[in-house]
């Protein structure tokens, strides 16, 4: 690395995607490989500029699989290596993650999540990849998963993720959603705690004279079985030592809202407003989604009347919340598949929960109140759209096109709940 130390831009407006790169640079990043995908490109561009200046190597490889495997190779040399991707790219990267976990190789993955199943049509932000990120590759493993909710925390946790990865010899994941990736905030002063990290005696660039180094899963059946036990042992250690959470006005809370990442910020405002209305509600924010702060939430649940999980998905952390609450009180869910849920909607949900009612779920029209399919339900809007199309395609062509467009939606059962 270069002699000039990296100085994080404290006090300057910083974008969420850049924050991940800054955190990595603070940690002394040596190697970054990636493949462009929205909204990770800003991170790619940032690292491409900043890393070579510090003497590191930045590469843009053929695809996400190549990227994650090259990062594995760099990490196998004992270097600090990172890659980052989004939904469809992360799916490809699972290949390398399971292998790195099996090979017990520390590296960091930046996950910038966006909505929808498969390739997204709208690139909307969401928290829909949490379940995948905790270890959906083959084999029995989970990865430490950090979910920061501010830009400063993103920098800090990304830097810390390298230490956690080194400490447990496992890939660590930092996850922010697409909204946070594009959000700009002033970077506040932050601190990365000093840790006593183990020497990487297994690294490939060590001398053969001392000992031969073999990095990789799939050595012998016995060794691989041993690794399975070791991974479980590591997960136990992580549960004991790496679990992190934050809470807001939970001391006397009768109702607890559980939210993480961007949703925690929005829920915080809703909680503040609900408190003004006299509802005794608090916010519980898991900072590590694995290890999940089970004990802390369980303790809160034992004195709470009800818990509400708010996520931008259909309940990927809900399972953990239920396990933590363990039947001590009812757990409700409030979520939608894409885009951040507005604070007023969360407030309304808190009101409903406080009134002892079931929380009304978010429907399609809550997510896309101005989508073109409104033309289907609102005759004036439909007529306007037809007129516009007809000007270019003629009356018949416009009708056929609109029917075709709307037909796609008509085949889908759109829940009527929450429709205006």
């Amino acid at each position: 690395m270069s002699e000039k130390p990296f100085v994080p831009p404290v006090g300057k407006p910083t974008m969420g995607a850049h924050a991940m790169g800054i955190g990595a640079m603070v940690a002394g990043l040596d190697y970054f490989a990636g493949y462009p995908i929205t909204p990770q490109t800003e991170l790619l561009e940032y690292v491409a500029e900043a890393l070579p200046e510090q003497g590191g190597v930045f590469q843009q490889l053929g695809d996400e699989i190549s990227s994650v495997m090259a990062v594995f190779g760099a990490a196998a040399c004992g270097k600090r290596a990172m890659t980052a991707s989004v939904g469809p790219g992360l799916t490809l990267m699972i290949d390398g993650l399971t292998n790195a976990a099996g090979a017990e190789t520390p590296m960091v993955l930046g996950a910038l999540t966006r909505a929808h199943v498969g390739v997204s049509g709208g690139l909307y932000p969401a928290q829909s990849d949490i379940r995948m990120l905790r270890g959906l590759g083959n084999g029995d493993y989970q990865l430490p998963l950090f979910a920061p909710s501010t830009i400063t925390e993103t920098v800090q946790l990304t830097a810390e993720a390298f230490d956690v990865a080194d400490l447990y010899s496992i890939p660590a994941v930092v996850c922010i959603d697409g909204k946070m990736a594009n959000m700009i905030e002033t970077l506040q002063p932050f601190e990365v705690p000093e840790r006593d990290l183990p020497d990487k005696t297994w690294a490939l660039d060590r001398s053969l004279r001392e000992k031969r180094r073999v990095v990789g899963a799939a050595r012998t059946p016995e060794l691989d079985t041993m690794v399975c036990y070791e991974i479980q042992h590591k997960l136990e250690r992580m549960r004991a030592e790496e679990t992190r959470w934050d809470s807001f006005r939970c001391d006397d809370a009768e109702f607890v809202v559980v939210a993480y990442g961007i949703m925690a910020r929005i829920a915080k405002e809703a909680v503040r407003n609900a408190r003004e209305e006299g509802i005794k509600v608090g916010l519980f924010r898991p900072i590590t989604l694995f290890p999940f702060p089970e004990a802390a939430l369980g303790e809160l649940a034992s004195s709470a009347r009800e818990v509400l999980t708010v996520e931008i998905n259909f309940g990927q952390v809900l399972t953990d919340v239920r396990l933590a609450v363990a039947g001590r009180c009812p757990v409700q869910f409030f979520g939608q598949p894409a885009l951040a849920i507005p604070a007023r909607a969360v407030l309304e949900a808190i009101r409903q929960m406080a009134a002892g009612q079931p929380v009304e779920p978010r429907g399609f029209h809550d997510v896309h109140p101005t989508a073109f399919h409104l033309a289907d339900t609102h005759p004036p809007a439909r007529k306007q759209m037809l007129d516009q199309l007809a000007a270019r395609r003629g009356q018949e062509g416009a009708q056929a096109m609109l029917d075709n467009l709307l037909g796609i939606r008509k085949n889908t059962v759109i829940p009527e709940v929450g429709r205006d």
Partner: protein
Amino acid sequence: MTEPAARRPERYTPPEGVEARKISPQLDVHTGLPSSWCPGCGHGSVSQILCDLVTELDLAEKTILALGVGCGSTIAAQMEVNTVLSPHGRASDTATGVSRMAPDRIVVQYSGDGDACGIGLAGLMHACNRRENFIVVIYNNNAYGMTGGQMGPTTTKEVPTTTFQGGRDEEVMGYPMDIIKTLEHFPGVVYAGRCALTSGVRYREASRMIRRAFEIHLAGIKGMKVIDCLGNCNVNWKGGGVTFTPESSNQFIEDQIMKYFQMGEATVPEGYPPIRVR
């Protein structure tokens, strides 16, 4: 991390009266362990060439093996150098990361034809396109050996496989891929050539070619050095009731498979005299 080295059996000791082959006073990379390859398989020959070469040139400390998945990856038990094991087809990508982070080392990717030309083709081609700096040795036996002899991208029409028992069906599966022809014109490839492991003479040619790749690398010429070694899979070329012996399979390569593949060097840096092949 677990300690793979601790589980390794004792080093092979030759019988009394036979002197151990020690070319260099430095580290000998031959583990001397019995190999898991089938009798007559050419993997043993490539392994021997690589072990001899690395020991002779005293490169044990400098060499890092990058392996994918396939019969070839068991070379890790034959050659005692630092080794990285990656999933099937990802050896080129892993070697990229290793060679970038350890530029003073010689990274050698050893792959089968399925690993390099099938699942790993994109990674290998992009590595060539990016002018990565490592050596790729491909053992091309026209089949997926570890899984029992299925047809691969390089399989020629005459080779009987378990998935295409009458030989490659050109209607469905097209034609055998010539990886050297594919890669030789990449500006990032500085050395490319094909050898075979079918006879003693061919073994010498192969050994010269692999040595040349190391020499070019040691001379500081940056770029990919790709060598495709034709070899048999005498046990698994068995589709349609056809069976082979090591001898007949080697003859079969000379008679049938070499019709499809140009032998010898395809790309050589300036100033290196050509290696003659039959």
